[in-house]
């Protein structure tokens, strides 16, 4: 992928926006250029995600990207659809992150059910949320549990949930997320901290640890 990487070095959001606009207006050249950028971008996403996925070699970064690429552009490329779905860069990256998410979730589900078929590993369902930043490893079960928690977070704080998705599934940096959502870095950081704390709690991250002996509020 070194060649693909060299082709487009970190395109500026403005460039992507421009290409999206031109592409939407029917420029084939802009569209081709965009495709290459997307490929590189997704590959970077895939690599950052593969660091989080347990390296069991059942899913390579390249395979992931290729699959993401196909899905993404099958969605946008319908000639008779007429309209370019990604009206803006936010839409674009959100779609890319969502694509990555779908692939990872499908993959995690498959592996989780394999596992259930094999050994009954009731084990540790706690998700180490730190992998969101410091890449270590996640079990398929953990990915699914986390994804579920992120969905619940959405009801609590929609923007925070979006930020988690973009960072976790999209592998985007704070600054990148901020420019995408058109908010300050500070806002993203705050939301991110809140989301992490919330998710950790939602996943029972402190069960059996130093959970306060006080009543857990409102548990059913």
């Amino acid at each position: 992928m070194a060649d693909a990487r060299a082709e487009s070095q970190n395109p500026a959001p403005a460039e992507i926006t421009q290409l999206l606009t031109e592409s939407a207006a029917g420029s084939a050249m802009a569209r081709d250029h965009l495709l290459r950028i997307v490929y590189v971008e997704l590959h970077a996403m895939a690599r950052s995600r593969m660091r989080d996925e347990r390296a069991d070699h059942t899913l390579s970064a390249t395979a992931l990207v290729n699959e993401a690429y196909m899905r993404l552009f099958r969605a946008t490329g319908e000639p008779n659809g007429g309209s370019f779905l990604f009206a803006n860069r936010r839409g674009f990256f959100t779609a890319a992150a969502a694509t990555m998410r779908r692939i990872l979730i499908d993959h995690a589900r498959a592996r989780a059910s394999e596992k259930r078929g094999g050994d009954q590993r009731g084990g540790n369902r706690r998700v180490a949320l730190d992998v969101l930043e410091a890449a270590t490893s996640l079990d398929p079960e953990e990915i699914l549990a986390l994804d579920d928690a992120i969905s619940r977070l959405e009801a609590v704080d929609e923007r925070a949930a979006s930020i988690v998705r973009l960072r976790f599934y999209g592998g985007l940096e704070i600054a990148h997320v901020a420019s995408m959502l058109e908010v300050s870095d500070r806002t993203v950081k705050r939301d991110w901290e809140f989301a992490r704390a919330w998710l950790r709690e939602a996943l029972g991250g402190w069960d059996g640890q130093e959970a306060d002996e006080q009543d857990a509020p409102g548990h059913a």
Partner: protein
Amino acid sequence: MSRTRQDMPEIDWTRAKQVFIDVMEAPAEQRCEIVERTLRHDQRLKQVVQRLLASHEAAADFLDEPESAQCPSKRSRPR
């Protein structure tokens, strides 16, 4: 038991988040007091925020120096 804590109704998450952020941005030694003071009339929300803060601290250790002490109120509630 399949229900989770987040099913709890009527938590004002907007307020919880705001207090959480205010506290996070305050000097470490003032945090417990700010929670106590700000939410003294809402024990439940206070607990929610305290849990979030504890969760945050537990997570933060991996990324950073732990920068704040645990609230004494978690062990033995003052007052």
